[in-house]
């Protein structure tokens, strides 16, 4: 069992060999995943990778065709109601009553969690306060900004302090300010010990918020690990060299002591970039080569790869694998 070294008693979510097809087209194709309580697990993948299908199955909205899924110790198919008691869901579209106000929404959902009228009212007040929504008055949710709506949606997901919170692309469609608002809210939750599964197609978002990341493509996990591990797994560090004169890019690539097949050149930014194995040797080698050839550099820097590069690397590997085994 691939549970990433997580002890079973501490797992918040276990997903084993889950399949789901829509009219013959597989959305999830044998997906495995497990993560511990008290962590933030990122599921990173492009549109159509199966992220939303996964969240809908985990939150009991969709039945899997095959596989085993446990959330907070309960089977999502056989014990759906037990699971529903323990989860919070923030879907891609605001799951709110748009005609009602913020407080009305939270009180209604509180009653549906069976908190009782008084407790539901108190809880609504606490959450409105916490997400900075107390001064919205009677304004219907329809009139909220995108960021406000998302925060209210998040508040509604937290009414019963869920054991596991699912966030499906929580910042898709938000402007940078809305995104910053949601990130701050998620960070404060994690500080309070909430277990979170977060799907995203923004690599930066996974890097910022998640402890561990599963990279998903075509309904399967193609890589798994911390952001640092994923970066290390795809060629380690990189060196970036920015030249003063774009005309010298070709000559510089020829003379630099870097692996020619893996060098990328961005003429607009006058940038040469390549993976390195020995950081210091590569740095001094590059500096020396440029001095000897009298090529002027504006900037030379060693850095870790971005998750974009990691993702491209991983999906390229997978495309190659598919090309080798086309009939599988």
């Amino acid at each position, binding site marked *: 069992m691939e549970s990433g070294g997580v002890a079973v008693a501490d797992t918040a979510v276990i997903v084993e060999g889950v399949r789901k097809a829509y009219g013959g087209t597989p959305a999830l194709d044998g997906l495995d995943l497990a993560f511990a309580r008290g962590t933030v697990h990122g599921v990173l993948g492009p549109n159509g990778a199966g992220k939303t299908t996964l969240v*809908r199955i985990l*939150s*009991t*909205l*969709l*039945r899997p065709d095959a596989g085993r899924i446990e959330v907070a110790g309960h089977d999502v198919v056989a014990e759906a*109601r037990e699971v*529903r*008691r323990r*989860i919070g*869901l923030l*879907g*891609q*579209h*605001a*799951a*709110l*009553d*748009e*005609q*009602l106000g913020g407080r*009305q929404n939270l009180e*209604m*959902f509180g*009653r*549906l*969690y*069976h908190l009782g009228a008084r407790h539901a009212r108190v809880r609504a007040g606490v959450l409105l306060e916490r997400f900075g929504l107390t001064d919205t008055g009677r304004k*219907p949710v329809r009139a909220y900004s995108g960021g406000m709506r998302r925060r209210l949606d998040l508040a*509604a997901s937290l009414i019963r302090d869920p054991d596991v919170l699912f966030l499906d692309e929580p910042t898709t469609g938000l402007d940078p300010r809305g995104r910053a608002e949601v990130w701050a809210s998620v960070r404060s939750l994690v500080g309070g010990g909430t277990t979170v599964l977060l799907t995203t197609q923004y690599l930066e978002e996974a890097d910022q918020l998640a402890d561990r990341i599963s990279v998903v493509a075509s309904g399967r996990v193609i890589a798994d690990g911390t952001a640092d591990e994923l970066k290390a797994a795809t060629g380690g560090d990189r060196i970036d060299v920015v030249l003063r004169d774009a005309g010298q890019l070709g000559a510089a690539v020829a003379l630099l002591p870097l692996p020619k097949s893996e060098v990328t050149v961005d003429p607009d930014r006058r940038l040469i970039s390549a993976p390195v194995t020995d950081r210091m040797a590569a740095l001094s080698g590059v500096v020396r080569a440029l001095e000897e050839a009298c090529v002027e550099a504006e900037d030379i820097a060693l850095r870790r790869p971005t998750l974009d590069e990691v993702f491209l690397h991983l999906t390229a590997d997978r495309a190659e694998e598919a090309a080798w085994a086309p009939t599988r």
Partner: protein
Amino acid sequence: MGTYALTDSWTMTRRELAHWARQPGRLVVGLVFPVMLLLMFAYLIGGGRGVSGPYRDYLIPGMLALTMAFGLEGTMLAVTQDLDKGVIDRFRSLPMANGAVLVGRSAADMLQSALGLAILVGVGYTLGWRVHASPGAFLGAMGLLLLLRFAMLWIGIHLALVAGRPELVQAVQILVWPVGFLSNALAAPASMPDWLGTAVEWNPMSRTATAVRELLGGPGGEPGHVWAAVLWPLALLAVFFPLAVRRFARMDRQ
């Protein structure tokens, strides 16, 4: 199962009442429209073809039945609008009773329909219409009308769940009108070609209208129609209630 079914259903009914309070205009339009139709047919269009007796006395029970049938559109629209938004996902991910969403919808619609009936009866009175029946018969007639509405409600919920999108409601609206007019609500079947008259007699709405006329003692009432007005809606319910509930419970298959 069961322990929270009532409280959850009440919470969902309160949600609909809160919508009325938020947008009273919508409710008012829904209530005024049948009154408009009634006045139009009473004074503008209605001739009462084939009706023996004052047309007004024939028309009003017909309009009551027609209004109950047209309630289907409102139900459909409300359900599809809910489905179209993410809020239904939240309801389905909560540990609430499964059917509470539908029960809330039907409770609110029935309340609105009862209110609509009261208003139409009141308007009928100001037009000079009089009920010649015992209080028991009057309540029986109102009960038959609400039973028809209840059957139409579940047809509406089922159609909405099948259609899924508000745009498709328009297609159903186009069909509801001819089906509604293809009844004895506005004209007596005797005035129609034989084949049409037969079709009209079979319309469940006609059965209810005839039974109501019978119970309230107006023209067009024939004895022995009450049972048909009970059985037709019950038959429709027996088909569409389980279909709608099943469809709602299995929405995850979509």
